[in-house]
Structure formats: C-alpha cells, structure tokens
C-alpha cells in the first residue's frame, strides 16, 4: 500500500513537470529576455510554500550568474521594498495568482518601474493581468489530500525556476571561472548583490594626489593607503588621472628622474569610473573587462566620492581574471 501510494505521488508530480513542457512558450522566452536585459537583480517573492520555493529559485539564480535575492512580500510592505530598484525584475510566485500579500505590492513594484514576471497556475488572475510576462505553472492534480500542502504545484514551480536559471546561464555563457568567482565561500553571490556605494571606500581612505604634486608624494600616498594606486585630481578636486603600481613598474626604467617629476607627467588620463548605484557585480564585470583592480566613483562633474577595489568585492586572494 505504502509503495503504491508513493508511486502514485511521484507519478502525479512527474506528470506536473511533464505538463510544463507544453506550457513553455514565447512568454517564457520573454521572461528570460526581460531578466537577461535588465541591469539590476531578480527579486523573487512569494509567501508560504511558494516563498520557500522562491528562496531556492533566488539561490539557484545567484549561483548561476544572475544576481537574485528573496523578498518576503510582508516585509516588503514594511519597508523592504526599498531594496527594489527600477532596473530590477521582480519574479512573483503565486499558484492562485490571488495571494493578497503579493498583489498588494504589485502597484509599488510597478511604481518603482521594475519589471514584473508572474509564475502562476492561474493565467486569468490579478497577478497575471498586472505582470509584464506570465509563465503558466498550472498543474492538473495535487498529490496531497485535502489541499493540506501544495505538492505537485510547488514541484512544478521549482522546476520552472530551474528552467529560467539554466536558460539564463546558457545565455550569459557562464564559465567555470564564474563559478569560482561566485562559489568560493558560499556567500559571495550575496556580496555581489549590494550596491557599489555600500562597499566603496570614502573620505580619508581614498588615495588622492593633485596634478602638481611630485611623484614622491604620489608614492607615499600609494604606500599609506595600500590600494596599489592613487587617483589624481586637478586644483578643483576633479578626477583627471590615475597612477598605479603597474604604471610605476613600467615607467621607472624608461623615464628619467621619475621621482622628481610632477604627477601630471606620469599619470594615466581618464581613469575608469562607475556609478555608486550600480551593483557590486557590475563593478566586478567592469574590472574584469578592463583588467583593472579598482574603479573610482564620481559625481556628475567628476568629483571623487569613493573608490572600490577588488578586495572590497571579493576578499583577498579569492579572485583571478579569466585567462
């Protein structure tokens, strides 16, 4: 009897996933594109068992290169919606599509300007109607009696979440090195989801010299601040250049009396910068793209607000650029 029942449950759950195959259509592709093209994170939300599934989907997305986090809608209503930005995509999970807690945050999410993808078993629901894209995760039958616990429907949701994550992974050409980047301590994915402003060095921690100062001052500043570089400003504090350890090594043999020369003769012009509202993950991508280890953070007129170093993002000794 027990074996028969177990087989019955597994048959129902397998059927639920089998059914999903026919439901994967252009809506699925649109949802993946929406997430892929967004410059923000995926914010997964749901309550009850859907919430538990949502946490797993967020973790899977993060592990496979799509920055994601879980937001409980009730916490959202009490202030946590502040973490949703306009570049984010909210992935809302509700089998009925009428979960009050979820539907109450929809107007706020829409007001912020974030994208909204619904994972629901009811394509005619309020959630589906208000979403940019709806993915149908409806099942024909639950395996648990009396609706005491969702079974096949949560299995289907979980499977669809995996389909989204893996599709995005393929789309991003996620590499072995990316896994190294995201998995060293298990919590690195979370660390890359914070904003640059939350990890950047500010105030006296920023190595800065002015263009007219001699290179000896620049070397002292680089040594004291221990970032292997110094930013260079003009007399009005506007960022104009950068000197790095690498610059010094390259120039020390080719330039005479380098220590007596003013900084402006040695510096590299127009250093790379990043907006403080960007994700730490984006900062990491920029560093990797340009093969540099720091990015300056400036305001609209290029006044220095901070600096972010690889170590601030990843911790020491945990990162190597892809060869």
């Amino acid at each position: 009897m027990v074996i028969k029942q177990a087989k019955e449950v597994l048959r129902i759950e397998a059927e639920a996933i089998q059914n999903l195959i026919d439901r994967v259509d252009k809506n699925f592709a649109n949802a993946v594109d929406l997430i892929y093209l967004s410059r923000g994170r995926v914010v997964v939300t749901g309550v009850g068992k859907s919430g538990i599934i949502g946490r797993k989907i967020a973790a899977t997305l993060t592990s496979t290169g799509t920055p994601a986090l879980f937001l409980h809608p009730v916490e959202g209503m009490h202030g946590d919606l502040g973490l949703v930005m306009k570049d984010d995509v909210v992935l809302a999970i509700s089998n009925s599509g009428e979960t009050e807690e979820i539907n109450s945050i929809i107007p706020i999410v829409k007001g912020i300007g974030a994208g909204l993808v619904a994972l629901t078993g009811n394509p005619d629901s309020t959630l589906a109607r208000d979403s940019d894209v709806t993915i149908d995760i409806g099942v024909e039958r639950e395996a648990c009696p009396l609706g005491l616990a969702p079974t096949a429907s949560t299995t289907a949701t979980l499977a669809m979440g995996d389909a989204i994550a893996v599709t995005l992974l393929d789309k991003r050409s996620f590499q072995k090195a990316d896994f190294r980047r995201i998995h060293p301590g298990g919590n690195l994915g979370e660390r890359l989801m914070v904003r640059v402003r939350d990890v950047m060095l500010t105030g006296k921690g920023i190595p800065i010299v002015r263009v007219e100062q001699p290179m000896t001052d620049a070397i002292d500043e680089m040594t004291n601040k221990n970032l292997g570089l110094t930013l260079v400003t003009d007399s009005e504090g506007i960022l104009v250049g950068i000197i790095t350890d690498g610059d010094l090594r390259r120039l020390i043999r080719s330039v005479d009396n380098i220590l007596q020369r003013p900084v402006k003769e040695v510096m590299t012009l127009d250093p790379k910068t990043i907006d403080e509202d960007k994700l730490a993950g984006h900062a990491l991508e920029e560093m990797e793209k340009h093969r540099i280890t720091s990015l300056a953070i400036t305001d609209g007129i290029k006044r220095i607000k901070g600096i972010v170093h690889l170590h601030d993002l990843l911790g020491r000794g945990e990162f190597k650029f892809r060869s």
Partner: protein
Amino acid sequence: MTTYPPRGLIGALVTPLNDDHRIDKPSLKSLLEYIMKHLQGVVIGSGDVGEGFLIDNERRMELTTESMKIADGRIPLFLSITEDIEDQTVENIIYVEKTRKKLNYRGDIFLLDCPLHYHGNKGLPCLYVEFGKLTSLPFVLYNNPLLITQLQKHLKRKNIRTNVLKKLSRNEQIVGIVHVGELRRAINYGRAVRERRNFRVYDGSELNFLSRPGLGGVVSQGANILPAKWSEVTESSTNPKEALREDPEYYPRIWKTGHELKLFHEAYMQNPSAIIKSALKLMGKIQSSAVFEGTLRITPKQESMIHDLLIEHGLLQSPNV
C-alpha cells in the same frame, strides 16, 4: 465563443420522487436551494446517484424543465442526456435545446453524456460532430466503467479510450470529462487533453479527489447531504488560500472535515441513491426516499446506519435530546 465548465464542486443531485414515483417538484426545489449556494455546478439526472439511466422519457423531460425553472440561471446545470440508445439520446438533446429557447434560459448549460452506454469507442468523434449539428450547447463526457459493468452492457470497452478522448478533445464543443474510476486513467486523460487549456477533467470518484485532488474539481454525490463541508474541502484542494494556512485551526479543521466526508462516503456508497435519499428525508430536505424501479431499496440496517451517522455528526437531532 465556447463556454467552459466551472472549476470546483459539482453536485450530482439525487432525483426526488413522490411516493407515486412522479418527480417531486417541491422537494427538487428544496434540495436545489439547500445545496446550490455551495456549488459551482449541479448535475441533473446523473447516471449513478441521479438514477438517470432508469428515468423514462416523460419524467426526464419534466426533471429537465423543472430544474431549469428552479435554477433560473443561478448555477451552471449539467443536464444528463444519456439513454439506452443513440436515437433517444438525440431526442434529449433536441428537447433541452427546445426548452432552453422556450424558457429563454440565460444560464450555463452543459450536456452530460455517457457515450459508452449506447455506443462503442469507435466512431465517437464523428458522433459528437453530428450532435453538434443539433445544438450549440457544450458537451461534458461521463466515463464510469463501474456503471457500464453494472448495467451488464457487454461492450468490449468500459472506458473511453485515452486516444479517443484525445481526438474528442479536438472538438471545441466538448469541454470536459467526468471520470469515475482509476486515478491512473484520470492522469492519462489529463495528459490526453493537455492541449486544451480549459478542458475540465473532473474527479467523479470522491475518494480519488479526497486523496489526490484533481484541480478541475469533483462531481460529488455526498454534496447532497453535506454541501458546505464538501465546498470547504473542494475550495481547500483546488484553490488553497495561503492566508488560511496561517490559521492554526485550519489544518485540523480540514483534516476533520475530510475524515467526516470519507465516513459518509463509506456509508452511502453501499447503495448511493437510496441511502442519500433516506438521509435527505430524515434531514427534511425532501419528502420521500422513494427510488426508481431498478434501484435497490434501502435495507433496515442501512437506514439505521445513516440515521445514526446523521445524529453523530449533528445533522439530525437525537430522539433522546
């Protein structure tokens, strides 16, 4: 545009009779009013508890007309049209069409048909194409192998074959199926009609629904006696509300209700029409527990058993109180 049948609890109504075996119209009204507010649809003259295969032509027409008058569009009606032979079934389709027009009936009507009672699997898709020429009303199929066996039909097949259902589901006018029997077949039927998103597969077997609920809903005989409790369990199974789950009393209550429904199911399945009618008479919902010629009469033991069960569950006052 095709009308799709509702999800949820569909009550299979017993057919109330007078002691002289005429349709008991006041009891029909009383019973419908008692259960209607808890249901998403109601089956009139079903082959099992509604004794639909035993109703003669005159009384079926009377039952159909009266049900439409009482329901008055307030609830979707599943009108059983099946007869022993195809020609009589056709007559029923025509009668429903005429009555609907005559009464200017605006509510949803679905024609419930058990084709294997008068036809084999072969040629079923063509049969419904022909039926479609007689009516614009949607059809819901009824698959009940036990009933076909009981009626001693020596047909090769007791079930609508899955691949035949797949073909039938391509006919837009066929919008659902009620399956009484093995869960495995219900799953296969679900797979066969997958391409029709709104095609409804109802559990005609209450026990299947209570253990592994199909999200299309259930066609329930027990809803005659316990409509509110069947409604609560159906809602919980097909449309669970997360908010309700926060209530610490929710799980114990649903569990207890489910257990109660199973107890009643076990009791009335010994002789469904007679025992349910007896219960309804005791509860004062119908005047007589008379059944059609051909239905087993209730035994004194069964009568005593349902009486005690009703008292035990507070549906009837104990004579000692």
